[in-house]
């Protein structure tokens, strides 16, 4: 499974990338939404873990953009962000995110949410 991690925090990308590589996944990393779109264009991505607040193109814009592309409709998106306002959670889901995790997170949280959207590793 190919997983794309989109976060401007190097530390968060490191943690998530290590976690998914340990599970045997191929991992791509992007620092913002624009870089993420290039990764998506370059190959099949099954799951995207997306932060909200990033420079250039933020996570919500990225989700909106991905969901407008017919060829990306099967990509599962989990937002992992410090945004905890219920209206913002609703906005992310309305835009097309499949699940939402509020930072700080644990590996178990990510695994539980993956299971909820039908991804078993």
């Amino acid at each position: 499974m190919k997983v794309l991690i989109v976060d401007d925090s190097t530390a968060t990308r490191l943690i998530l990338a290590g976690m998914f590589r340990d599970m045997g996944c191929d991992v791509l990393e992007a620092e913002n939404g624009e870089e993420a779109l290039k990764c998506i264009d370059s190959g099949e991505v099954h799951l995207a873990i997306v932060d909200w607040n990033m420079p250039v193109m933020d996570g919500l814009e990225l989700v909106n953009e991905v969901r407008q592309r017919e060829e990306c409709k099967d990509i599962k998106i989990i937002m992992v962000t410090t945004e905890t306002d219920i209206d913002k959670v609703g906005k992310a889901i309305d835009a097309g995110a499949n699940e939402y995790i509020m930072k700080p997170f644990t590996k178990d949280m990510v695994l539980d949410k993956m299971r909820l959207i039908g991804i078993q590793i």
Partner: protein
Amino acid sequence: MEIITLDNFRFVADLLHQKTGIVLSDEKVYFVETRLSDLLRNEGIGSIEELIETIRRGRDAALEKKVLESLTTNETYFFRDVAPFEALRKVVLPDIIQRRQGERRICIWSLACATGQEAYSIAMVIREHFPQLASWDLKIIGADYSREVLEKAKSGTYSQFEVNRGLPVSYLLKYFIKEGDRWLLKDSVRTLTEFVEFNLLDSRYSLPTPDIVFLRNVMIYFDLETKKKILANVKNTMRRDGYLFLGTAETTLNIDNSLERHVFEDNCACYRIGQ
């Protein structure tokens, strides 16, 4: 951290086994020291020696209960293991609804419910998928030994960490209100539940007769005799055509072979009284 003597450890372990059925082996000394050290701080007691001496004298039942409560495990989260809730939605509730068309009453137990996430997960499944039950007499009873966790369960209020674990975001948006940094369950879910203090070792279960029982990830803490006693109590109390869910790693095999195992999707199993 406070150190406990082997004699005091065994006294506490015996008391816990006698009052709750939970078995603590000798390698759990560190666990007991950690939990009792927290209790000492909260109660303003100087040492474990002093605490145990008070309990040994038998004059402070409330403190004894706090000691025992501090040694119970309250790990729980929303929709734990997912599969039992899928089985509930797809098979168990449709069957029970069919069987109870006449009386229009359903009772579900969530035993050793801790802070209530299992009971509320069941309630959310019902609100989400079974609108026809709105006019039924339906109750989900969460029961636990610990008063402290029951108070939290009754409040229906959870931290960000707790709602992050296992709860589908669509349910968070639909059934919770955010108050400051806490998440509060809406009344539409809370009114389906009731939380009561309860000991699985009681000789007779005084709760309303259940159609469905969740007794998950509890039996692992008991010895064989206690497991037999609890299963017998559950079996004698639940409806003859009811359903019993145990934890993924738990079984009735060699404990009560009269209970029949029924396997659903994802290898999720539940148990029924042989018809």
